[in-house]
């Protein structure tokens, strides 16, 4: 594949655009002071976004179902984390459940 100038410019635009998205939040927060209620909502938004990511990446791949093995692993992780098991145990068990299920032919 030839790396055309257009492709190089696209790479730079994606990098600069992503940095601008990243910088907007801290810039806004340092320029404007929000009422406490809005502050609280912005704090909660990180957990809301991450929860949305967890559910969509656990259950879907490219807009369709990700099968059973992956969500099963994530459910195991959820139960173990809720029971306050160490993070490393939670994450490795989740991956183990998924890979074992796949080993036995579960999608």
């Amino acid at each position, binding site marked *: 594949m030839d790396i055309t100038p257009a492709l190089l410019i696209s790479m730079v635009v994606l990098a600069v*655009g992503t940095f601008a998205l990243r910088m907007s939040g801290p810039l806004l927060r340092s320029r404007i002071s929000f009422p406490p209620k809005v502050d609280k909502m912005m704090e909660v938004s990180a957990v*809301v976004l991450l929860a949305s990511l967890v559910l969509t990446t656990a259950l879907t791949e490219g807009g369709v179902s990700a099968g059973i093995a992956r969500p099963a692993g994530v459910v195991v992780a959820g139960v173990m984390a809720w029971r306050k098991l160490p993070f490393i145990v939670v*994450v490795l068990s989740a991956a183990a459940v998924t890979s074992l299920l796949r080993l036995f032919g579960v999608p």
Partner: protein
Amino acid sequence: MEGAMVRDIALVCLAVGVIGISYGAIAVTSGFPLWFPVLLGTMVLAASSEFLFIGIVAAGGSPVAAVLAGLLVNSRHLPFGLAVPDVFGRGWRRLVGIHFMNDETVAFAVNQEDHDRRRAAYWACGLGILLCWPVGAALGGLIGTAVSDPDVFGLDTVFPAALLALILPAFNDPKTRRAALTGAAVALVTTPFLPAGLPVLLGLLGLLTIVRDKET
């Protein structure tokens, strides 16, 4: 920073490195020169947008479409920045800290109780990913087609599992729990119909469940 936190962050960074190997391998076997995924990975530092960018260009899509799709996936960084404005540091460090913003660094930050630990976890994870992601991409590009499918080892489960474990303590707050569960449901049901990135952003609608509550 205590040992357990270092170990947890190292585990996630290692997994990022392994995904980086498959990202580099996909890029090079699709015809990109080795330096391209490494440079893209270092400059953008947001995995899913890079997979998408490489995939669209490799499939013959226009670079403009690849940029727009990548930016849409990365749009959640704006609310992330609003949520954790106090972890970036000052001066030139602040620019580096802002570049480190991604799902994992933010998740490690929200998992910590006090400000110093938030910042330490955020930076340690950011540095680890800045190291592991491009190095993984370079390794993957060099090994190329020899890379096996990381899904066999359940690596695709590692990220949702790790993020879930990190945000779960925040669910002790009933309002946070309600907003997060509602938002996640909105994201899930819109996923089949919308381009990547938008459903997660729509998850923010979950915040409407707490907007009317009295001050706490």
